[in-house]
């Protein structure tokens, strides 16, 4: 079991093409010793969940700046459950208004990161909460 590594899928659901934040997070996670599966922009929740399944990731990290987080983030958690992926930790980041955060957490997004969050906070949260 010496070789176990935390595997994280960094994915961008929806239509925005701004992936700089996602890439910064992906690199920070790699530097923290995680294996990061990076899938690029404009993905459907279905694609994200199928990738999470095939790659058997421990964490799905969603990044979204289009404003559609209230629809797309919960769609991902719902599909994960439907596929039997109950142990996957889901976190999200992007321009997300404070008012939306409780609803997203309710929908199964374990933690939300808004602009300016240090990547160390994301890493600590994942290390502390991964199953």
């Amino acid at each position, binding site marked *: 079991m010496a070789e176990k*590594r935390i595997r994280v899928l960094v994915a961008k659901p929806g239509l925005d093409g701004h992936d700089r934040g996602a890439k910064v997070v992906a690199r920070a996670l*790699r530097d923290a010793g*995680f294996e990061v599966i*990076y*899938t690029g922009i404009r993905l459907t929740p*279905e*694609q994200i969940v*199928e990738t999470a399944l*095939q790659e058997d990731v421990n964490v799905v990290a969603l990044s979204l700046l289009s404003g559609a987080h209230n629809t797309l983030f919960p769609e991902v958690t719902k599909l994960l459950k439907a596929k039997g992926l109950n142990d996957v930790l889901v976190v999200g980041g992007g321009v997300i208004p404070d008012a939306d955060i409780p609803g997203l957490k309710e929908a199964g997004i374990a933690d939300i990161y808004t602009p300016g969050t240090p990547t160390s906070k994301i890493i600590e949260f994942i290390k502390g909460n991964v199953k």
Partner: protein
Amino acid sequence: MDIVKGVLGRSRLAAAKGITAVENEYPEATGIMQALYPHTGRAYILGITGPPGAGKSTLTDKLAKEYRKRGKSVGIIAVDPTSPYSGGAILGDRIRMMDIAMDEGVFIRSMATRGSLGGLSQKTADAVKVLDAFGCDIIIIETVGVGQSEVDIVKTADTTMVVLVPGLGDDIQAIKAGILEIGDLFTINKADREGVEKLHIEIEMMLELSGSKGWRPPINRTVASESEGVLEVIDSIEAHAKYLKESNELKARRAESIKTELLAMIAERIRRHINKTVTETRDFEKTIVRLQQREIDPYSIADDILDKILK
């Protein structure tokens, strides 16, 4: 979850969990592989290697699409390097394959090299077996052609394709010694760029020098991003598969690969046994001290220890 039953019943979740078990060396991994082994050996295995940025993932995506059109199910194992500094990795090959991500007949798995001591080739070979037992007709192993372990990985393939791009100039010299010898096929990708002819001639010359025994590796040209030349590549793969079968070399290659794998497994078990019974004992530490003081010599001690193990 019963992983073995799941894999044989074509459960994608079970296949994913099976590969994880192998990759993380879970205690149940050996049992899973023992049970799956009789169900392997059916898939055709294609190895793709070449320098970073050559377009291996894009080409893999296009090949997979074409195989799907022909009704074949496809498994893909994409290997990327682990950072030697952090132990982490960015596995980005899937970016080029998102079109086929939702296809039920395609299963893609990314693996990091994890800097293991030659263990990666075994893990990759086992991941291939999981996908073989899962029912994939074609399994594509994609690695970055930079190191010996990656060369070993593609050696487990039936057909190995080396992808190169024009414009790397003398870089071809650097990779020549490592990966060019293992190519059954060569593909010059990004063939709309300057330098194609030069590269083509260089590969020709290299093949000329190495001499051919029965099979002369063809050199194809592709622009994978535009799907240009992909059908010709598939034709070459099929021609090679046909050659292997008719010349009986497929059987010989697979026998060789099984032999290599078995010997590696034995060596690994011996290594583990030595760790447990020799390295981690107090006597061993004392021996090291005595060696350091030149009271004894390592040649005799190595023989003594071996005698003890064999008893």
